[in-house]
């Protein structure tokens, strides 16, 4: 099954940088109402840099592993780079398997490329990432200038 890549299982069993830390500029709590998955995300900003992203994820292996990768990919990066990673993750996950993902932007996140073939699980993989963008907004970051990539055309 191409969904459960070893990297995903590793992240879900031992999520990196897990737990909620202080201080933080914004905290959000998002749920996936279809399954009850929950994630709490905290962001601490230092000007234009994400100094820390801490989280508490309760859910399936996909959503927990995704939060783990999220924290790794955005912590220490500029808000702009973090949002580029979000866009790349979102584009890959909604591409129905057409977009393998950019490892430079996503790191271990490319392991989630297989999730795109399972529409019911895309929301699991995006839960933490969407919550992260919400947290940025609540921390006062204007993300409206970030444009999403064009969706990949459906085949057939």
């Amino acid at each position, binding site marked *: 099954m191409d969904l459960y890549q070893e990297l995903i299982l590793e992240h879900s069993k031992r999520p990196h940088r897990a737990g909620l830390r202080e201080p933080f500029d914004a905290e959000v709590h998002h749920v996936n109402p279809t*399954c*009850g*998955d929950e994630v709490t995300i905290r962001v601490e900003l230092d000007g234009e840099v994400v100094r820390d992203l801490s989280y508490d994820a309760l859910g*399936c*292996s996909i959503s927990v592993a995704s939060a783990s990768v999220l924290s790794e990919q955005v912590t220490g990066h500029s808000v702009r780079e973090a949002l580029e990673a979000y866009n790349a993750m979102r584009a890959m996950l909604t591409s129905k398997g057409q977009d393998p993902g950019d490892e430079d932007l996503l790191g271990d996140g490319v392991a989630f490329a297989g999730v795109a073939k399972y529409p019911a699980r895309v929301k699991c993989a995006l839960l933490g990432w969407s919550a992260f963008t919400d947290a940025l907004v609540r921390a006062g970051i204007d993300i409206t200038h970030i444009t999403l990539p064009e969706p990949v055309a459906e085949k057939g």
Partner: protein
Amino acid sequence: MSALTTAAISPELSVEISPEMSGQPFTDEELVRIRADFPILERTVRDGKPLVYLDSGATSQKPFVVLDAEREFYERHNSAVHRGAHQLSEEGTELYERARSTIAAFVGARHDEVVFTKNATEGLNLAAYAFSNAAAGGGGGSGSRFALGPGDEVLVTEMEHHANLIPWQELTRRTGATLRWVPVTDAGRLDLDGLDGLLTERTKVFAFTHASNVLGTVNPVRELADRAHAVGALAVLDACQSVPHLPVDVVDLGVDLMAWSGHKMLGPLGVGVLWGRPEILEEMPVFLTGGSMIETVTMERSTYAPVPQKFEAGVPMAAQAIGLGVAAEYLGELGMDRVAAHEEVLSAHLLDALAQRPWVRVVGPGSEPDRGGTVAFVVDGVHAHDVGQVLDNDGVAVRVGHHCAWPLHRRFGVAATTRVTVAAYNTVAEIDTMLASLDRVPAMFGVDG
């Protein structure tokens, strides 16, 4: 009367079930014939794996006779029923009303006691809004017992599907009445010890489920209905998980209103049923208003048609209702006592097998009486979504999540469960396929198995 091609709409059912086998599970030979009636069971999923469909509690599959009945309606009789004097409309109306009679008979009711709705959710909302409209002085009903206000109470249970919870939450919010609920025990049964304190003179409605869509628990409906009536409350039953699986007789149950869905009982999507006692339906204010449900209309005001038409606004879903009538005939041919016996064999087999797996915890009663074929469980340390995905990869379709019963899951301290539900067409071999797939889960996610 018009010349109906009734043979096509009410086709010769292909099942031949021996009447001497009353109360017995289906034989292997019978199961082969039943399965051959369901075309979808032939297909494969996920790269050629035979479909093992164990999600009939969400929606059941449909036999050829139901599909044929819908198609035949559209090919031969398509028309707006209860409208027009042309032949097609006459035929459509007759078929639609005949389906109503069939469905009524299926649950021991009479023709005019059956209201077609979009689904069970709409049936329960119809009931809740009838109370709301009565409280607001509208809807044309005559029964003061429907008028709720501050000081009145609505009683539900902690094991309800959201469809039998949220309409009552909203009703009490709109009217100022109070919502109360019967808790659930650790064993997955209603905790009736405190019922006297919850079901009082203040209670106007007691709404509860016949069979839990998560726990599999079958509730003592007659006892609960009698106790509701003893304090003057109406008993409203969610029968979604009982009518498709058990012999159900509204006279025996003793409730006042009962809602269920058609698509869970081998019928089409888009049709459900609200049954009510005639005097209750008579007094009940209307919910949806518009065409078809009127008696007279002026610019200022309107009066409403007799039951059941006053509850069926707009052009009804005739093809679906007719398909549902054929589904009821089909289940009647199988024999609901035999369907129940068959499903009991399947769930007992599953429960016994799960009990031998210490890494699995069943949420709900074990193998015992007053339990239906629904089995929900958790695998320690693995989220239900992941369990379901592994099963899906092996062609096994189950439901994962909270199954629209979030408070119940919270009660048991779990975010989500994996749920297996069965129907007449499932086999023990399919349960074994599901178990073999389940056994791959612990190693895959690195938990002790």
